[in-house]
């Protein structure tokens, strides 16, 4: 899978972290970014796939891509608000 489809403005590594940290750290990172910027987040928690999707939907951020790669998950989120 082409993982460099999006040019992230920032990358956040949440590897090896369990619920609820990937969501909390993603939220903290997004809060510090400017509108329109893209955050790349990497996680190993399988629960983060649905969690990040739900989080983005609820908080009005755009989940551009959620990809499964070997051993981890990669998310691209655009800050909309």
């Amino acid at each position, binding site marked *: 899978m082409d993982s460099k489809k999006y040019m992230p403005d920032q990358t956040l590594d949440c590897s*090896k*972290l*369990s*619920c*609820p*940290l990937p*969501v*909390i750290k*993603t*939220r*903290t990172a997004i809060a510090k970014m400017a509108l329109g910027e893209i955050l790349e987040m990497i996680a190993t928690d399988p629960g983060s796939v649905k*969690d990040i999707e*739900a*989080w983005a939907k*609820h*908080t009005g951020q755009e989940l551009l891509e959620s990809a499964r790669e070997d051993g981890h998950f990669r998310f691209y989120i655009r800050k909309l608000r």
Partner: protein
Amino acid sequence: MSITDQDKKIIEDIVENKLKKLLSERKKRMAIVASKGTLDMAYPPLILATTAAAMDIECSIFFTFYGLDIINKRKNKNLKVPSLANPAMPIPVPNIIGALPGMTAMATKMMKSWMAKVNVPTIEDLLNIAIETGVKLIGCQMTLDVMGVKKEDLIEGVEVCGAAAFLEYAADADITLFV
């Protein structure tokens, strides 16, 4: 000057749109009661509350009865997992063994080591995240009185109030949970 049906329709539309906008802007709210003081029961309210904060959901936790131990700084580093009458233990222990001295400490140590292995934050970490992200932590006044706990015994940043004050907050909640 009289109001025509058309005027009425316009006014109704304006009001409806305003209301819709206000309702969509209103933050969701969650009210949690934490009533248990064991390690396993301290996690769910704190995980849910910190996640809620990350999801822009306003959240308060009301710590009552044994749940007060979770925000008691003299006790919250030593919360335990009960080994007695706990059939859900990963390694099932007959009650007669679970009642032996040292079994609670062992069960607690085991759970803490499993949690550290998968990097679950500690109770202390979660409390810090909760305070940083604006989760309101509230000690139950009556429990403080019953247990002889002073406000100074509680961690920094918590409030203390009674049932009515918490219910006033909970009355406008979209999610209410009792743990």
